[in-house]
């Protein structure tokens, strides 16, 4: 009896799941341009996937209200992989084979993206990923593009600034989260290229209450000239407070992971003088009026905040850039012919997005350079653009 109940429950669950999935796909009408997406809207990467989906929904609506693309309406067919790369692969298959979409956006994480890559390559489907990993576009894959900057670029931007100030010996303190460890890997990989020596390599847990032990150890390393912290959220704020507590006077660098007002609020006075690379989107208000990105980032911020009553994030911005690059390419191609659209995406030049100025080429399927990041310094509790 019990087993039958369970079986029934499972059947009902599966039935509702398929129903939900098909109903999402079903309202696409013939003649519409179909944008497929697989995002991690729930699960551990939900903080990335949720703003991505919201952004896509918002802008598909806005584009349709303004008359659509090539006189045709856009339809978004979206699936949630729950942060599971296997599911992402399954949904990509469905988008290609039964939904017949014209373009796929997504793969919130690098893992999900890489699970989808073989399918889109085989099917010849234009694919713009929202994952951060370098592996997505290196080596270049014919049908695969991406919009977010990589952690390596953040590390390179920091090292460029350190070189300007003559700082050569750096202590690295990274978080044991995925973000921190990716940052650590990239930092160590590019340090030598910039003539930087990493003299200490310490870590901390994302929820740790006190990092004075690691900082004391770093303080005791001979010749250290600067400290680089790679982490997300509250951990870096605790590090910053501990830094002030220990009275360490070395210049401190943080990653783009703390580029939010929350960080300055949590770290308070201790954050004075901290430098970090940040994408323009997060410092929309501090950009000079003649900055080419200013209109794009302020417009996105306004549209998103008006609709959802929450602040924009880099991830949503990456989704917007992916959609706009795709739509631009379809316009230029004059049709949804997949080969033409792919060629048009690869030919994207001077596209002003939230993540920077995008110049794609046959050898660069991301198209961003270090100018996508601004070096910021915290002065009197405010972000200022460092010279």
């Amino acid at each position, binding site marked *: 009896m019990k087993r039958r109940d369970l079986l029934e429950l499972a059947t009902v669950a599966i039935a509702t799941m398929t129903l939900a999935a098909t109903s999402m796909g079903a309202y696409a009408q013939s003649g519409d341009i179909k944008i497929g997406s697989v995002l991690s809207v729930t699960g551990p990467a939900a903080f990335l996937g949720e703003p991505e989906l919201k952004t896509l929904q918002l802008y598909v609506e806005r584009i349709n209200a303004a008359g659509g693309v090539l006189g045709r309406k856009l339809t978004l067919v979206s699936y949630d992989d729950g942060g599971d790369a296997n599911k992402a692969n399954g949904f990509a298959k469905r988008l290609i084979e039964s939904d017949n979409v014209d373009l796929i956006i997504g793969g919130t994480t690098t893992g999900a993206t890489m699970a989808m890559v073989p399918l889109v390559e085989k099917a010849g489907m234009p694919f713009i990923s929202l994952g951060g990993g370098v592996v997505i576009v290196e080596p270049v894959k014919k049908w695969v593009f991406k919009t977010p900057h990589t952690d390596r670029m953040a590390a390179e931007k920091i090292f460029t600034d350190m070189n300007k100030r003559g700082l050569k010996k750096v202590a690295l303190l990274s978080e044991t989260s995925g973000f921190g460890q990716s940052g650590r890997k990239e930092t160590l990989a590019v340090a030598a290229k910039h003539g930087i020596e990493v003299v200490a390599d310490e870590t901390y847990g994302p929820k740790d209450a006190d990092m004075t032990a690691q900082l004391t150890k770093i303080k005791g390393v001979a010749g250290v000239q600067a400290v680089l912290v790679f982490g997300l959220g*509250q951990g870096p704020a605790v590090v910053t407070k501990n830094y002030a507590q220990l009275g360490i006077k070395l210049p401190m660098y943080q990653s783009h992971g703390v580029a939010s007002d929350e960080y300055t609020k949590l770290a*308070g006075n201790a954050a004075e003088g901290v430098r970090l690379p940040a994408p323009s989107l997060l410092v929309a208000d501090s950009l000079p009026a003649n900055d080419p990105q200013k209109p794009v980032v302020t417009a996105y911020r306004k549209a998103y905040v008006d609709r959802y009553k929450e602040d924009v994030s880099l991830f949503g911005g990456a989704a917007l850039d992916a959609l706009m690059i795709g739509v631009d390419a379809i316009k230029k191609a004059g049709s949804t012919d997949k080969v033409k659209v792919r060629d048009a995406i690869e030919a994207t030049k001077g596209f002003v997005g939230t993540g920077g100025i995008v110049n794609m080429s046959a050898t660069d399927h991301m198209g961003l350079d270090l100018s996508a990041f601004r070096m910021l310094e915290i002065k009197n509790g405010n972000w200022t653009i460092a010279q």
Partner: protein
Amino acid sequence: MTAQFLQFLFSGITIGATYALAALGFSIIYNASGVINFAQGEFIMLGGMAAALLTAQGVPLPLAIALAVVVAVVAGLLVEKLAIEPAKNAEVVTLIIITIGASLFIRGLVQVTLGKGTHALPSFSGDKPLELLGATLLPQSLWVLGVMLVIVAALAWFFTRTLQGKAMLATSHNKLAAQLVGINTKAILLVSFGLSAALGALGGILVAPITNTSYDVGIMLGLKGFVAATLGGLGSGAGAIVGGLLLGLVEAMTAGYVSSSYKDAVPFVLILLVLFFMPRGLFGAKITERV
């Protein structure tokens, strides 16, 4: 050299004191019911979050602290009334699972209503670090240590010198016998949830200026607090303190002298060893089960 050692020591004491405060809450409910309350971390979170949000609204700190404790106590009483009491005849394991459910519920509720953001609470007596032989300590750490000692003393007095405290201990040892001698065991369980919620909230408020607070701080503090409580011996106040401090010190010393990558692994190895040789923890009572 000494300065470095002292700094590691201070770091360990700061972390350890937060673990110890969390561990104390586990001990109280365990004493009253034999249940390990996995919602304890959520009481800690509620205290910190409520205090941080109230002070951000302009409520003076002492009043915010009092209100935050009240919020957590109400939550603790509700958990007991709505989740534990209806299942009163269930086995201890069932009750433990219920507390896990309650903790997920509270965390989710806070996440949805108050958001996922991190909040800061100002330090009670400034952020200027105290210096000693080249090492520094935040005044807030002294607050944590001081209040912890006061709580332990108060609890020791409560459990050994008052009728209510003794009734609580009696209930944990033998519920039926306690009922037969006229102890209202239902009320005892309710009081123990209220008390441990109050303690957890107080701990959450005290550590919030050091660690900041968000809807999910309870997971880490709850887990480490539980580990500290087991290490010291469940149900023992002194054990909770020693377990918490030991855990914090081992973490800080490992991070300082070995490598921060092993910081979380070494304490767990230590715990395995302690539990292997002393299954009831360092200060656990030797209980013989009657057949």
